[in-house]
């Protein structure tokens, strides 16, 4: 028991450095997912028939194919096919980001759909262009409404990021595994990795909760 604790204590700085890699992967993926997801949502709600169809297939694909399959497909398949040599880290960010964009687009789409339809018409009547009305009237409300769903997505991407270990990204899970291989202390190390993931989940969702409060408009309801 004490031996396990000594191993764990010694491995902690190494695991914590892994948590920085995890945070970097998740932050990159969430940002990529946010930017793409907003565009996809707007396209799916306000776009023409063909655009809606294309986005539908995109969302279907990235929600339908398992993460591990996509990671291998991009890392070994696409990169060799297109002769581009991306690092495992970059591929993980891109793949997690693309998957997240599919999920996030549906969070944003739901939020847009929950707004009264008259708002856009009113904005148009005031002389705003479609783009301007969406950017200035619809999206500011959409983003506020999306925060609870988004914090859900954050915790899912955070945990999915552990799969990047299969490509050799040195995140927390990979590091816990390596230390366990050297020391044969599997239980305490996987436990520690799980605990660190829980802490990151707590910090992220707590932060988003605070953000939700901060940007709330008192007295406003959609």
């Amino acid at each position, binding site marked *: 028991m004490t031996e396990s604790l000594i191993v764990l204590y010694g491995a902690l700085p190494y695991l914590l450095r892994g948590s920085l890699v995890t945070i*970097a992967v998740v932050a990159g993926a969430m940002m990529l997912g946010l*930017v793409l997801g907003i565009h996809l949502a707007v396209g799916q709600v306000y776009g023409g028939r063909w655009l809606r169809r294309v986005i539908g297939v995109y969302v279907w694909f990235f929600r339908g194919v398992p993460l591990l399959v996509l990671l291998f497909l991009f890392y070994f398949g696409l990169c060799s096919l297109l002769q581009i*040599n991306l*690092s495992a880290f*970059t591929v993980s960010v891109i793949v997690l980001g693309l998957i997240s964009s599919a999920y996030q687009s549906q969070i944003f789409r739901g939020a847009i759909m929950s707004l009264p339809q008259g708002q856009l018409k009113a904005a148009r009547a005031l002389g705003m262009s479609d783009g301007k009305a969406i950017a200035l009237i619809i999206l500011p409300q959409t983003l506020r409404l999306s925060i609870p769903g988004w914090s859900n997505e954050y915790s899912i991407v955070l945990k999915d990021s552990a799969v990047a270990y299969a490509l*050799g990204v040195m995140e927390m899970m990979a590091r816990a595994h*390596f230390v366990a*291989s050297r020391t044969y202390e*599997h239980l305490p190390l996987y436990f520690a990795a799980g605990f660190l993931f829980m802490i990151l989940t707590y910090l992220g969702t707590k932060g988003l909760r605070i953000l939700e409060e901060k940007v709330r408009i008192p007295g406003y309801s959609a």
Partner: protein
Amino acid sequence: MGKRLFGILFLCAVVFVIAGGSTCLAKEKVYINGIDANFPPFAYVDKNGNPDGFDVKSVDWIAKKMGFTVKHQPMDWDGIIPSLRAKKIDMVASGMSITDKRKEQVNFTTPYWNIDQVIVAPKACGRTVDQLLSGGNRVGVQRGTTEAKWMKDNLIAKGKNFVLVEYDSAPLAVEDVLNGRIVAAAMDDAPAKDAVRKKAVKIVGGFGMPSEDFGYAIRKEDTELLKMMNEGLKLLMADPYWEELKEKYKP
């Protein structure tokens, strides 16, 4: 306002991705050695998180002698040859057995280590190898290894009655031996000795697989690198440091 915000966010995402990618692209002259960091004592990560092990230190010595820089990149064993061929890494010096099948895909340096395959079981186990590999027993092995393939082709296919359970790494198989999910695990003798030093397991004996040679795997077209590594290995094995390595890592 809204548009600008998206612009900034998008830029952030792009910069982030490029910054992450370029760290690998910028240093062109560095050779990357892909290792299975779950393979002590040949390759693992030490207390401070730095790659260590018999093969890691060997390549470090060769790099210094031959005048190049080497970076050790831990990765999954399953994907290590695809990674080598896809130029994600430049060599594999991580206890890789030289086989005809692998030779079709990559080149190997001259052999530097001879390895036997053994069966590992709990210390208290009184059964022989033949008894363990029979009666429908579950036996563990690392996925994608030569011993996994050999056991399938030469034991199970020829009527031996046991079930092969595949693991991500040899230490995980040892862990499951201790958990009692499998009666024994097959692996190279070096990691087996490492396990015996650290856990309540013992080496029961060999299981009839011919011994193998380890070599460094290098891409077919990199003949220059192959020549350099062969030369470096020759120098290393003639140097007193070779004995020091053997003493330190006890492979």
